[in-house]
């Protein structure tokens, strides 16, 4: 069985790309990568270390039009005889994988959290992280979209060949007017460490202490829904049931009570630290470490402790 892995390399290669290739390698000894991005050949070749036998790159695309990407990936799947296509479950996958599913008539498993079990089913998050489902694919070909931070990338090989590929992208019906990219920020769904705060911070002018801790840790910042709704923080930082779902290694929440809708977006986190003045806050029931205290005192202290830890050579 051959596996095709789609990688978005428009902004260089992220950890999620290495995870997706590693996932492909666990399914098959024959892994081809298809990418349309602008990453250079030597960068793309490093995907071989994670198990790619070959990287196909179509450089004809200027944007990330979902119809064009679908055609390129479908053509690469035909060329490489792939019976499974792997995506990292990011914004591109959410647009492209469903289209590809229809085009290839291949069942799509979105948001996989693990490799398929012996009986061929794939585990996914359902009910906004409150449960898991095991999905069986009935079609011969399958598409799996892997949730970031679900498996560890494994380096097993060396650089592989990179070949130019003409995927016959066809025309684009979408005209890109402008693209805004926040600088230096870690995309939340991929972040391994996240520092988040809620209404307990009392106002947007107080976010400095949250950002200081995030900076000391090298973490992304997030917020609760009320904070995004009243405009203290941008909407893309809102984690929860109706915001972004994240699954970092460490989630630190300050001044968030932990309503069920907030938990739905963060309960995939491996370790949760909760800081709240109210010892009865429901969030403590879901937390691994709890601190009953005032975020205005605890966060700066934690930042100092983290700095001390980092300066001691960690």
């Amino acid at each position: 069985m051959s596996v095709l892995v789609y990688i978005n390399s428009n902004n260089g290669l992220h950890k999620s790309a290495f995870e997706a290739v590693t996932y492909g390698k666990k399914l098959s000894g024959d892994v081809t990568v298809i990418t349309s991005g602008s990453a250079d050949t030597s960068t793309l070749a490093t995907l071989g270390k994670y198990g790619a036998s070959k990287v196909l790159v179509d450089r004809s695309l200027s944007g990330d039009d979902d119809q064009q990407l679908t055609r390129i990936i479908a053509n690469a799947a035909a060329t490489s005889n792939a019976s499974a296509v792997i995506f990292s479950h990011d914004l591109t996958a959410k647009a492209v994988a469903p289209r590809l599913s229809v085009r290839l008539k291949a069942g799509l498993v979105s948001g996989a959290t693990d490799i398929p079990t012996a009986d061929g089913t794939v585990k996914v998050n359902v009910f906004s992280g409150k449960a898991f489902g095991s999905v069986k694919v009935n079609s011969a070909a399958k598409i799996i979209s892997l949730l970031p931070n679900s498996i560890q990338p494994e380096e097993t090989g060396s650089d592989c060949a990179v070949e130019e590929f003409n995927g016959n992208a066809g025309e684009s019906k979408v005209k890109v007017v402008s693209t805004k990219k926040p600088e230096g920020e870690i995309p939340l769904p991929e972040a391994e460490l996240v520092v988040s705060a809620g209404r307990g911070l009392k106002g947007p002018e107080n976010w400095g202490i949250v950002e200081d801790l995030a900076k000391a840790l090298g973490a992304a910042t997030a917020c609760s829904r009320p904070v995004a709704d009243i405009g203290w923080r941008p909407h893309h930082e809102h984690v929860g049931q109706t915001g972004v779902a994240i699954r970092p290694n460490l989630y630190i929440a300050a001044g968030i009570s932990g309503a069920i809708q907030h938990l739905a977006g963060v309960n995939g986190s491996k370790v949760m630290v909760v800081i709240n003045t109210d010892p009865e806050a429901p969030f403590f029931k879901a937390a691994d470490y709890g601190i009953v205290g005032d975020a205005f005192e605890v966060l700066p202290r934690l930042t100092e402790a983290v700095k001390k830890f980092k300066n001691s050579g960690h």
Partner: protein
Amino acid sequence: MKILVCISKSPDTTSKIAFTDNNSKFDENGVQYIVNPYDEWYALVRALEIKETSGGNVTIITVGAATDEAVIRKALAIGADEAVRIDADPTDAYYTAMQIAEYAKSNGFDLVLSGKETINYNGSQVGGMIAEAMDLPFISLASKLDVNGSTLTLEREIAGGLQVVEVNLPAVVSCAKGMAEQRIPNMRGIMAARTKPLQVVAPAAVENLTEFVTYTMPAAKSSCKMIDPNNMDELVELLHNEAKVI
């Protein structure tokens, strides 16, 4: 402008999640169903706003059983003009999308809207599948949508940023936060919804490409370890040596 809004039911966000039949089915016992929030707050309300400024008609469509009509009436109460229910069990995204695409193709819509995902299956699949089946452009996770004649201007999230794009109608758009504000149906809307047309359509012959075979609940968290607020060095030490996350 003829707009089709795809809606799905989902359990109320505070519902207890449990499973029956050897963990193969969602336990509906005591569950209150609502219109999936992304479909209602963003897709449906934006469709109504477009209709209010530029005229047209808003049809909602769902794939589901007769018992789902309460949820359909709720969407009608918010202001949709008419509803279509494909009489089938929506257990697979491909099956569901093909049913809706079939109806949309034969009834000529300018714009098809869906929510960005359902809060129960979180698949984010149906919108893109409809677009592919109809060979239309698909703008996923749009947070803003404006209509100028036959052109749409949209803002959408892409990996690590925001993009403004233009696309000609017809098109399929999945709607995320920012697109519109939730509307609470008023008494007049609720009364009017009772008599609005609800057409029941037999499903087309389509196979299921996937199925959920079992469900499991996450392992219960061990109890929370409380740390002295004056001793953040201890927390850092635990995160490093015990939890091994920093």
